[in-house]
């Protein structure tokens, strides 16, 4: 059974078909990428998988359960975490609180216990503090834990957003253009970091990129989409040499 299975997913915005009968299967433990030119429908696919948009047609299965059109928070609780292309941190929260809020698997005390300082609450809060410290350590942000996240430099905000997603202990991590706005050196660092978390957390990762070279050394399997449709799929080498892909990226050669 695949971890994530997408069947003939389609999304129309008025007369525009953003995603057109898109199908894909992710096996557990893989590192996948979807690439395509700007406006190809990559982020729309993420928004459909995470329930932010409801699909016009098609189905999505996670661990064999259908999650098509479910509420975003329910899908997140089932184990799909994501980051956003234009970083969406809780900007007036401290760095630590950004991560701590997402560690919901480690605290189950009720709303009533939120009003009173019970022993269970104290125990679980301690666990939350420890877990968030460990995650911040992993992304090298521990010494900035008490700063407001909006005051972090851009690259650190990206890392914090990934740490927040990891705090959910997801089975599947969706990364939306993680290298956007980064220089080549930072991009290389980030790719190493993604490879590292892929191994240490036993994660399945699906990432979106529009720069092809970023994912070439990283992903095992690449899907190329254009105008919402799959135009190629395969290993980085196969995709790179595919004439259809080159055409989509560079346009056709003039006579």
């Amino acid at each position: 059974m695949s971890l994530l299975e997408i069947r003939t997913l389609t999304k129309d915005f008025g007369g525009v078909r953003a995603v057109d009968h898109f199908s894909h299967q992710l096996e557990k433990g893989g590192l996948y990428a979807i690439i395509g030119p700007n406006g190809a429908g990559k982020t729309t696919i993420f928004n459909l998988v995470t329930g932010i948009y409801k699909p016009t047609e098609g189905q999505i299965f996670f661990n064999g359960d259908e999650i098509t059109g479910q509420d975003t928070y329910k899908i997140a609780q089932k184990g799909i975490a994501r980051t956003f292309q234009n970083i969406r941190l809780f900007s007036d929260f401290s760095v630590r609180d950004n991560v701590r809020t997402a560690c919901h698997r480690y605290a189950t005390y009720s709303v009533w216990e939120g009003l009173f300082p019970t022993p269970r609450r104290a125990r679980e809060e301690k666990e939350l503090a420890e877990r968030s410290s460990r995650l911040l350590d992993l992304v090298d942000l521990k010494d900035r834990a008490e700063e407001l996240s909006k005051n972090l430099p851009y690259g650190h905000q990206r890392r914090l957003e990934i740490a927040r997603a990891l705090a959910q202990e997801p089975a599947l991590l969706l990364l939306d253009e993680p290298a956007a706005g980064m220089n080549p050196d930072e991009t290389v660092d980030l790719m190493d970091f993604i490879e590292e978390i892929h191994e240490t957390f036993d994660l399945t990762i699906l990432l979106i990129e529009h720069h092809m070279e970023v994912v070439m050394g990283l992903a095992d399997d690449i899907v190329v989409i254009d105008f919402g449709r799959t135009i190629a799929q395969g290993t980085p080498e196969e995709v790179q040499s595919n004439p259809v892909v080159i055409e989509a990226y560079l346009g056709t050669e003039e006579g």
Partner: protein
Amino acid sequence: MSQYYVGILILICINLLAVLGLSLMTGFTGLFNFGQAGFLAVGAYTATILTTQYSVPFLLALAAGMVVSALTSFVIGYPTLRLKGDYFAIATLGFAEVVRLLVENLEKLTGGSRGIPRIPTNTSLPLALGASIIALWLVANYVNSRHGRSCVAVREDELAAESIGVDSFRYKQIVFAINAALGGLSGGLLAHYVGFIQPSMFSTIKSTELIVMVIFGGMHSLTGAVFSAIVLTSLPELLRTAQAWRLVAYGALVVLIMVARPEGLMGSWELTPANVKALFNRLRSALGGE
């Protein structure tokens, strides 16, 4: 202590209860509520009708006022809490007006616009103060819990909050209900302090006064809510000698604060031992640096 000052203290506590709920809802969760007076009215009329017409014990009537008010918030919240920011605020405005008009027109039950006179004045300072302190303690606990953090996450970025597994609708319902219960308690105490209620006491002016207190003190600070409930309740009384000018002074002060410090007096600063120590250290190093 003279009866006059006791009265001001009781009014501070009564306002504080309503402001604490609003602070949690508007300040921490980001749901603007311009109709808090509606919940005060529900609490006040429920408790008063129970004590005056059914001889229900005072504390039980207060509790009933809180419960009815909280239930009302569920009924109002279910269709409106999914609305985006401004639209929700307008819905709360409409809710308070509907409550006021209902009270005005259900004459048999509420006395209409003439109101209900001769309510037993059971609200004492120890009761009002005790209720405020307990409410402050509960709300502070909530804000510092995982649920409180989830509420702030919803305020900061609802989509991101949903994406990390926060059920934003449920959290909005919870804080709306806590807010309504505190507003209902505030209304019940007010009725049994003044000894008389009429619909005009629960107009938009009252709602505005309460939301101004939250914004004035600092949207993200309970310390600010307490501080502004004290200052803005007592200020018009202390300026009483200035007669007509006192409300002008009140308005000018609010405008001044908003211009000089849009995040409110306290911003997001809280009065905790650690923060006081940090402030003290900063002051000392600033003075020592000379």
